[in-house]
């Protein structure tokens, strides 16, 4: 079942429009990356998905039901970790325990809090009694994360969780979040510039630009290193030796986007040598997900270390006889690759 369905959302701050989203669905237990330049609306979108604010126009459905702030459906299930770590003026223990206290869920409180602290790499003996002002940025962020993980949320929204922290903290934060997904099936939506998140973990990536989902969303971001290739093009060697070709980017742009709507799925049985041709790649299907309209299927295809999610009609799925695990080919036009 889809977890989120965001429909015709237009959001304004005063008279300025900050978001304009036609239609997007987020499945359960996925890890969704959210990328876009500063000011593109990532934080706003996460706030709306966290039901901290209500969209000016449009609706957000959670598990099929239209939902807003303070709703009993979502209040205890969806949590947002904001960009700047903010702790209340109390001890670390009190900060982490807050969520459980307001739910009146006090069984074995001490050991649960200490477990959560261990999950983010904060030893209870030295950290539990510390006051909020005696922590580094990274430690504070980990405390904030622990407070949320403790709640075993169904959705964890992370706004630049590792942007302002030291590398150790970044690693621990990532590890703890992924563990949540693995153990409890928590859906993660991560707004980030950190390639380690996107590269290694995201099932699909939403790309926001000026408040709009770029080219239908769910794109695939490709990072360096790139080598100079043939005729002014750059090429990137994937882990399995395949090569992705893209045109040279402008100054300062570093991330290439494969627009899934421009990709074509082909059967390998018909052209077995395709993978050596420029503009062709081989991979295999990892996930098929039917969207709520009953017509389109999100098809996730893993190509070496990349995952692209292409929306195709269900008839095509039947025609191509797609199933998870099946090997397929992807065709793309190198000139159409965009840079971020």
């Amino acid at each position, binding site marked *: 079942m889809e977890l989120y369905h965001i429909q015709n959302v237009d959001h304004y701050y005063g008279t300025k429009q900050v978001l304009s989203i036609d239609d997007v669905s987020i499945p359960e237990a996925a890890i969704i990356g959210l990328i876009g330049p500063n000011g593109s609306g990532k934080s706003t979108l996460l706030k709306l998905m966290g039901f*901290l604010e209500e969209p000016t126009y449009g609706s957000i459905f959670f598990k099929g039901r239209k939902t807003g702030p*303070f709703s009993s459906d979502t209040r205890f299930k969806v*949590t*947002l*970790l904001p960009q700047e770590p903010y702790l209340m003026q109390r001890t670390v223990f009190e900060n982490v325990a*807050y*969520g459980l206290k*307001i739910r009146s869920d006090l069984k074995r409180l001490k050991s649960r809090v200490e477990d959560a602290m261990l999950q983010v790499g904060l030893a209870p003996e030295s950290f539990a009694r510390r006051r909020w002002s005696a922590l580094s940025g990274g430690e504070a962020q980990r405390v904030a994360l622990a407070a*949320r993980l403790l*709640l075993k949320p169904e959705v964890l929204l992370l706004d630049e969780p590792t942007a302002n922290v030291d590398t150790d903290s970044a690693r621990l934060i990532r590890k703890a979040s992924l563990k949540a997904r693995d153990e409890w099936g928590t859906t993660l939506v991560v707004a980030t510039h950190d390639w380690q998140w996107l590269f290694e973990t995201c099932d699909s990536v939403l790309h926001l630009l000026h408040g709009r989902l770029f080219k239908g969303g769910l794109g695939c971001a490709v990072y360096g290193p790139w080598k100079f290739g043939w005729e002014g093009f750059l090429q990137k060697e994937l882990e399995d030796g395949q090569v992705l070709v893209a045109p040279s980017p402008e100054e300062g742009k570093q991330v290439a986007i494969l627009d899934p709507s421009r990709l074509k799925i082909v059967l390998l049985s018909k052209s077995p040598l395709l993978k050596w041709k420029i503009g062709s790649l081989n991979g295999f299907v990892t996930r098929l997900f039917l969207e709520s309209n009953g017509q389109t299927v999100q098809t996730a295809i893993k190509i070496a270390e990349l995952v692209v999610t292409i929306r195709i009609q269900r008839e095509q799925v039947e025609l191509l006889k797609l199933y998870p695990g099946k090997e397929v080919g992807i065709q793309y036009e190198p000139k159409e690759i965009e840079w971020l």
Partner: protein
Amino acid sequence: MDFIQEGFAQAYALLVRLDPATYSAIGTTLRASSLAMAASLLLGIPLGYVLGYFDFLLKKQVRIIVDTLLSLPTVFIGLVIYALLTRHGPLGEAGLLFTIPGIAIGQAILSLPIVIALTATAVEASDRNLHITLMSLGANRKQIAVSTLWEVRLGILAAAVTATGRVLTEVGISLMVGGNIKWHTRTITTAIALETSKGEFGMGIALGLVLLLIALTVNISLAGLRRRI
């Protein structure tokens, strides 16, 4: 100038020898002030929260009115309360004129704008991220209110200290509404007014010093509170 020295000597004498009239006045002052502060904090903190936290039509105008009320002269408040509590007035039947609760009502009105304005300022100054954090951890509106007020508790304490200072030292209300009746509604401040009008300046200074001592004691305990929370 000698009456100032005289005042110090007399203050010591009054306190150490347990002068009954002085201690009666101290008791009256403390009783009226505590009632007034309790009422104004109970009402003022939630109202201050609403003013600071929510955005509503006419918010700016309400804020201006509250800030203006900070300058209410005590004699003016005293007069208005007298008009309300007098026999023929709307609350005449309550028999509150010339009583300590009557004084407390007037003093509460003096204190209320201070508590509201300073609480609202404290709430407004609190980090936007607090609200986001509280909501994202699943707090409902009531829990957000309580937690926010706890977060700005030092600002609220400052409001209480300021208001208490103003209430302990006012004369206009105690005089008009209390009537300065010896043993019953004579406060330290009205006693000072009386002694000064009788020409007993030394006594006036003495009582002033007593009041300062009370204020010092109150503030020491509030400072102790500040360290603990």
